[in-house]
């Protein structure tokens, strides 16, 4: 649906210009090209300077033994850092925690986000108020929300903890704490999912739903057979974005548990190796591994589910 909507105008221009491009660029086309590059260069330069170069540097650092306390003794050690990380129980435990948090929060968010999106799309009462309310968690500083959850679940201080049996301290139990982390993550990012899904809902023409109604489809059948299939591109984009985002979870865990009691994510592990253990080599190896993991997730989702890379087809 989105391709057909966005494929206007541009292709026609292409068809007209293609032949001339093959031979020799006209003066106009050449100056257009120069202007395009000039306008894009500030953005391109700064994005590459902050990502591409440091990433290359991270790969280099990950092959070194580099302890911040003894910078002069750093030297090349090959794959030793990777070996150390990949044979460590910490890495695999934190990796598991990250995967659990990602899978759980994205699935819950998808269902909840769909409910929110349908409500924003269809409600007949307080539509604007509802939209505003749903935006609040999106805007709020993650750290602020995380503190709120932390205090709410801390025994004695907390309202929610007060509702539990008096001995319970959920933030000190690995999987209970992970549950709270998921709750905090879901609260904070469901609005983003809901808005992307809302955009998808808006692409389903009302006539189609009416036609299905005439064809005898119940509300649920209309949703499953018409709305969902037509929203597929929007759903895949939303799930892809949120999966990659959830995989790098850091803020919520840092505030809620600081990664204690086995609740650390891979991002927390990387941070700790740098700032607690002051080990640049190991920290960099973890950084590179996370990058590779994210790359694999993105690749699998884009290939496996046929997610169109946003923006790739319409520009």
């Amino acid at each position, binding site marked *: *649906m989105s391709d*057909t909507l966005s494929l206007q105008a541009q292709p026609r221009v292409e068809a007209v210009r293609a032949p001339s491009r093959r031979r020799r660029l006209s003066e106009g086309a050449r100056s257009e090209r120069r202007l395009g590059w000039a306008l894009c260069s500030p953005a391109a330069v700064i994005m590459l300077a902050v990502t591409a170069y440091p990433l290359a540097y991270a790969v280099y650092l990950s092959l070194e033994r580099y302890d911040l306390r003894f910078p002069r003794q750093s030297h090349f050690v090959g794959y030793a850092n990777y070996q150390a990380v990949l044979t460590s129980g910490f890495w695999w435990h934190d990796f598991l925690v990250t995967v659990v948090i990602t899978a759980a929060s994205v699935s819950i968010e998808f269902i909840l986000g769909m409910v929110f999106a349908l409500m924003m799309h269809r409600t007949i009462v307080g539509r604007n108020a509802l939209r505003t309310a749903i935006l609040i968690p999106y805007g709020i500083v993650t750290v602020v929300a995380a503190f709120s959850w932390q205090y709410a679940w801390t025994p004695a201080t907390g309202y929610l903890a007060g509702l539990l049996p008096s001995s319970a301290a959920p933030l000190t139990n690995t999987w209970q704490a992970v549950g709270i982390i998921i709750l905090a993550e879901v609260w904070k990012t469901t609005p983003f999912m809901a808005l992307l899904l809302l955009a998808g809902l808006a692409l389903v*023409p009302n*006539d*189609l739903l*009416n*036609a*299905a*109604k*005439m*064809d*005898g*489809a*119940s509300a649920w*059948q209309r949703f499953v*057979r*018409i709305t969902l*299939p*037509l929203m*597929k591109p929007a759903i895949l984009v939303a799930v892809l974005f949120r999966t990659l985002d959830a995989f790098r979870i850091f803020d919520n865990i840092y505030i809620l548990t600081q990664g204690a009691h086995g609740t650390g994510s891979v991002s927390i592990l990387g941070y700790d190796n740098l700032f607690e253990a002051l080990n640049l080599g190991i920290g960099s190896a973890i950084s590179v591994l996370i990058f590779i993991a994210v790359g694999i997730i993105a690749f699998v989702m884009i290939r496996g589910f046929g997610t169109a890379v946003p923006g790739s087809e319409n520009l």
Partner: protein
Amino acid sequence: MSTITLDHVTKRFPDGAVAVNDLSLDIGDSEFCILVGPSGCGKSTTLNMIAGLEDISDGELRIDGQVVNDKAPKDRDIAMVFQTYALYPHMTVRENMAFALKLAKVPREVINQKVEEAARILDLVPHLDRKPANLSGGQRQRVAMGRAIVRNPKAFLMDEPLSNLDAKLRVQMRTEVSRLQRRLGTTTVYVTHDQTEAMTLGDRVAVLRGGFLQQFGTPKELYENPANLFVAGFIGSPAMNFMAASLEDNHLRSPLGEVPLSDRLRRALEAANVERQVIMGIRPEHFEDAALVASQPERAGVFFSATIDVVESMGSDVYVYFSLEGARANAAELEELARESGSAELSSAAETVVARLDAATAVREGEQARLWFDPAKVQVFDPRSGRNLCLAV
């Protein structure tokens, strides 16, 4: 095969706007009924109420004598063809047509057989496994029809189904729709804003304006005996000419000269007991070049002269335009018609008259011409109510 009855149906929107006001229609079994009118007249709302897509505020809707006001669309056994066709883009043509049957849990063989049959009727067999995006406009339109046909419903509802086609295809599909409806004999309610479609397709036509029914009758009735100024101006192309006129003893004093009143007309006008100022209407096709009429002395009528502003030759006919000073007819309904055709801003004291003449005419632009018309075809309207005074008996 069934009847549809609207009994004093009213649609009021939550904001208080009344889209359809006290509408009563009796649509017979196998009848092809057209709802026509300018945009905002309530025709689509009426159709949606019949479909069950909109609630009915007041009145009763009966299908086959059974009240269906509170029935969901799926329980009314009605198929609808949408203006945008509303084809499911993620399903093939076959799946689109089979969708309703599948939901109704019809056995697969029956579905296949019905879809194949509909596809054969509509010439869609080679396209059954294609997606709507790969079809031409006419093919999509036929798939939309096919989706309605396979269900063998009590009635077809069609919401401007041809308006997204180009002019040539529209005429072609019009014939096809008509032939299909005759062949299947399914009661059909068809919404359009195009009076040509209304006249050519409908067994009976309901003309709506501002939520009120203006007239419900056969195309011939609407054309020959329009109930009021609005229907007279809306039906027919080019539209009927209107001009101010006054009633004298036994004739009508008009900018085209004195028009003798037939007995029938005189009796009708006496019965109506109207004032002197009236609006006279005459259709373009009831004029003729005087030179061509002279050879047929049996055709009595009114002769007059006018300076021709524009001549448009259609090949088969010739349209001539001339203006009549001080003949402007004023009435609310005429203003609405003018707005609809986009000519409201052209208002002046002079009234432009269109006449359709035989192709053999020698009339030329800028020259004085002698024209003829048949006074028996003249219609007379009350300028205040818009009522056709000729129908008063």
